[in-house]
Structures are given as C-alpha cells and as structure tokens.
C-alpha cells in the first residue's frame, strides 16, 4: 500500500476541486456515469515494523458522448505504521500534486489522492488523452526498459498498483493492430519534461514496436517484440540511452510457457545503467525512485499453479546475478467470493548485507480486496 508522499509538482490543485470539475461541472444530464472500485485491507510485517492500511478506491467512468469520455480514480487511504524504505517510491515528478494528508498522527496517516484522472477525445482514428494516465510501453513482465514514463517496481507486493503519469497522449490508429503514440509529459521545468513517440504494429504473428524520445535529460531510442516459438511466448525489449552522466543499453529477453496446470515465466534483464560492483551501487537513486534496479544483470522467474478455480499458488524469484542476492516471493491466493480475494505471501530477501536484496529484512503480508 505504497503512497507516494514525495510527489511534488508545480501545481497543487485541491483534489475535491479537480474531481468536481470533471464530474460535476462537465457532466451533462445525457452523459453516462459508471461507478466501480475496490476496498482493500493490507497488513505486513518487516522486521520490527508493522504496517496496516485500508484503501478505498472509487473509479468513475463518464461518457459525455461518443467522442468524449473521462476517467477518475480517487483513493482514500488510512494507514498505520511506517512503510519500509526499500519499497521504491516511483514517479515522483508528476506535474500536478494531487495527494494530500488529511491527518497525520504518530504513525497514523489519513490521505487522499488521485490515482487516475483524464479526459479522452476520440475522433475517427485519433485519440487524445489528457491527464493522469498509465502509458504502458514494453513487453517485458518484470522489467521494461522502454517504460520510462511510469515505471513500476517488480518487488512491490501490490503488483497491480502502478503509478500513472501526467501527460498528453496523442494516439493515431493506422490500422486495427497498428498505431502511433506521441506523448508529452510535463515536468516542473523543461529539464523534467518528457517528449516521446512510439509506433506499434503487428506483422503476421509478430508484434513490433519502436520508440524514441527525450525523457527528462536523457535521449532514448528503443523497441520491443512479442511473438511465439513452439507454443512459448517470446518477448524482447531493449533501449539505448544517451544521458549527461553516461550512455547505456538495457535489454530484456523473456519467455513464458503454459504447461498443463503450471505457468512458467523466465526473464533476463541486462541493465547497463547499473553497476557490476556492489560497492558502486546507487542506493540513493533506488530509494528516491530515480532507479528501479542498481545491478547490471538480473534473472526473473515466476511459477504459477492453479490448484482450483478458487486457489492458486505462485512463486516469484528476482535474482541479482552480480551480487548473488535474491528475492523469493511465494504467494497463496484464495477467492473468498466472486469479488473478494485474499492473498497471503512472503518477500524473502536473501544475500549478504551489502547486496541489493540482502540488505532488506523478510516481509510477510496479507491482502484482502473486495471489488464492486
């Protein structure tokens, strides 16, 4: 239940005002409003630290007419305890500050925030999306070298919680499986602003994308691929970055296969931005959210077995090949009802104290989520 308290944008728009603007003022009588969301309770223990949280997320979809729609996802969250520092806060450069502390008192935090908030315009083959949105680029499952706008942390115990980016996204559909995306993500100043483009197409059984852009102070070119070989899913994703500090490659090679009853995913990640030598690790970059990984070579593995329609077990391994440390994350999922899930799991960090994963204590967690 990571709440990004570091968010500092140049604009601080009161949340209620932002929601009112879109829902109240803009919604004509003829518009369709659909409400959904979830309530989640989460508890985890890491060393001596105990953290518990309750989150209510309300999602509103508004269709003004066939061309204009909007989506708002509002979060109201009450937590107790201290969130572990090794859980990376990501995307701390959103343009508009939309999170606000309602009450803070000796470990108690009551906050509300805007998870998503955008308006979409669709005309012929053109879509324009303005606001906080998720722009999910790349085909890797653990790591995405081309997802520089809203990267996610594969160690996060809430895998489906993914930060968005405040951006204008112009998408031109060139045919049913091809499109060009042009994105502008505002920062606090020009150096923090990103401008990027991505073209995606499908040729036969091959999905191919090419991207380039200026992400804050770096120039990046990259691409990704998704296809199949002998029944297995095969994915490749790569980027080359020219930055003021250093130039580097990133590469992901990923394969998955569904055996009868057991799903297996393996992924290798080369991170040219990271270091081979653990003494040179940039921990400050990791904690600040500037980096998601600090080593150079990684291996990710997921094994998932569905025991019944209600229960499944899963194990995830993230291995830093440079320092030998790893994160092992077994989880057990149980469907309590059609709309309620229970997940119990462990993030078991192993390695020497000066290694990437070895410096973190074991983390036990459980989550209950009710969707409506």
């Amino acid at each position, binding site marked *: 239940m990571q709440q990004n308290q570091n968010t500092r944008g140049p604009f601080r728009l009161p949340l209620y005002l932002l929601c009112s603007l879109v829902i109240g003022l803009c919604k004509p009588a003829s518009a369709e409003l*659909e409400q*959904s969301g979830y309530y989640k309770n989460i508890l985890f223990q890491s060393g001596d630290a105990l953290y518990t949280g309750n989150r209510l997320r309300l999602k509103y*979809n508004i*269709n003004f007419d066939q061309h204009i*729609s909007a989506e708002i996802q509002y979060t109201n969250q009450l937590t107790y305890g201290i969130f572990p520092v090794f859980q990376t806060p990501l995307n701390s450069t959103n343009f508009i500050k939309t999170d606000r502390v309602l009450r803070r008192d000796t470990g108690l935090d009551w906050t509300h925030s805007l998870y998503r908030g955008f308006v979409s315009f669709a005309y012929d083959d053109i*879509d324009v999306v303005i606001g906080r949105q*998720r722009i*999910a680029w790349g*085909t890797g499952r653990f790591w995405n070298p081309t997802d520089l706008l809203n990267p996610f942390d594969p160690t996060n115990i809430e*895998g*489906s919680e*993914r930060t968005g980016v405040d951006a204008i996204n112009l*998408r031109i*559909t060139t045919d*049913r*499986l091809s*499109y060009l995306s042009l994105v502008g993500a505002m920062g606090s100043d020009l150096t923090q602003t990103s401008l990027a483009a991505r073209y*995606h197409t*499908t040729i036969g*059984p091959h*999905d191919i994308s090419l991207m380039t852009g200026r992400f804050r102070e770096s120039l990046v070119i990259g691409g990704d691929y*998704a*296809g*199949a070989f002998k*029944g*297995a*899913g095969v*994915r490749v994703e790569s980027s080359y970055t020219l930055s003021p500090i250093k130039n580097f490659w990133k590469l992901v090679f990923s394969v*998955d*296969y*569904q*055996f*009868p009853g057991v*799903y297996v995913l393996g992924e290798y990640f080369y991170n040219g931005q990271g270091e081979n030598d653990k003494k040179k690790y940039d921990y400050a970059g990791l904690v600040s959210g500037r980096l998601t990984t600090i080593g150079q070579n990684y291996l990710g593995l997921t094994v998932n077995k*569905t025991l*019944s*329609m*209600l229960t499944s077990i899963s194990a995830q391994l993230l291995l830093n090949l440079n320092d030998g440390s790893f994160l092992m994350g077994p989880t057990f999922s149980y*469907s309590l009802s*059609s*709309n*309620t*899930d229970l997940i119990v799991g462990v993030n078991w960090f192993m390695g020497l104290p000066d290694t990437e994963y070895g410096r973190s204590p074991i983390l036990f967690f459980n989550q209950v989520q009710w*969707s*409506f």
Partner: protein
Amino acid sequence: MKSKSFKKALLGGLVFSMLAALPAMAITPKEILQKSEAIMRGDTLQGTMEMLIIKPKYQRKMVMQIWQDNKGNRFLSRVLSPAKEKGTGSLKIDKSMWNYLPKVEKVIKIPPSLMMQPWMGSDFTNDDMVKEVSLEDDYQKKLLGETKVNGVNTYQLELIPNPDVPVVWGKLHYYVNKSNYLPVKQDFFDEKGKLVKYMSFSNVKKMHNRLIPTRMEMVPVTKKGHKTVLTYLDLQYNVKIAADTFSLRNLKDTK
C-alpha cells in the same frame, strides 16, 4: 392383371423409398458439419452470454459480451461482471490473441500454449471460446452412423485433428440432430481414446429469427460435481460489425 398392378405398385413404392432415402444416404460428413456450423456460427455473431461455473462446493457466474466474425476469423470478448474481472478483454485475429488486463491497464499477447488451458477457471478452454481451431477445416471427418442422444435422432460424426493442428484432443464425437442439423452433443477424447469431457446442447430457442440451442453444458467426466454452463442471453446473427471492433484500440475500451 391384378398381380401386374401389385408388382408395379411394389416397384414404385420401392423406388420411391429409395429416392426418399437417397438424400440421407448421400449426405457427407462434411456437409452435415457445414450445415450444423452454419446454423450455430453464421457469418457474424454478436451478443451477450452468461457463464456459470459449478463446482461441488461453490459456483461462480460471469457475464460477457462477444463479437465474432467467422469469415474473417476474428473474435472479441469483454467481461461485464463480476466487478473483479470487469473490462477484461480478449481479441483474436487469425492465429494471434491478445488479452487486455484492466488491473494493470496493459495489453499482453497470449502464447499459443495457453490456448488449451481453462478459460477463466471454467471447463471451457481458451480455444473453445475463441474457436481458433475450426471443426470444419482442421479435422478429418467420418460419419460413424446414426444414434439416439437424449431422445433425439442424430448423426454421429467422428472428427480427428489434422497432424499439424495444435489441439490436445485425439478425436471428437459430434452428434447432430438429423431433422434440423442442430448440435446435440460433443464428446472430447484424449490421445489414448479416453473420454475426457462432453458438451451437451439444449434449450432450443429462437434468437434473431434463428432456432439454436441456447444452453451449452460442458461436463468433465472425471470430476464429479463439476460443470460449466454457457447460456446465450441475447444473440444477433449476420449483423454488420464495424471493422474497427476487432482492433487493439477497441480491446482497451472498457466503457
């Protein structure tokens, strides 16, 4: 004189009987399957269906919208309920398939090995849902004879997958109503010839001016108390479906 007339009448009756029997005898297994598939699938299909997954101790219900272009080999589905799965979409074009997962707001390509796995925990496979494999094109067909299933006179067809077709079934038995060519039952056998599951078709109703079975029950024979019931809530045949329905753009549209 009397005897001659009797012989003529007998001969005439015999010829008439043979002629009457001729169409039934002459019909090929391919034609039976074509007629049956034409009724069930049409050129296009669009509607809403409910899936009820029944296990010995619990049940789960799911409602989804489907769009199917059988000539273009294209399929799109979108889950309407339960809320937890709402917006989950599947798009299939030719041999490629993509899923949209609203939880992570991402489109992912589905590996071919996933096609024979259970769809959303049901007794249907992904392939049963999107019909990647065509009974008409991908199987060798043989008419085994005629038999009664649930009180209905049926043609019994044996379908054996072509060697290059990626299915786990050794063979299928497909039972078609002799009078109207509607499917009555389908048996699924493994490669050793053992019956794994069967699907029975019932509750024949008129939908969009077409008489079809609106309830399909998939029953795994080795799992007592397990079954999945698929019910068409509304269905429209051969309506024009906009070309961009089967697109990545529309797959993500969770409205």
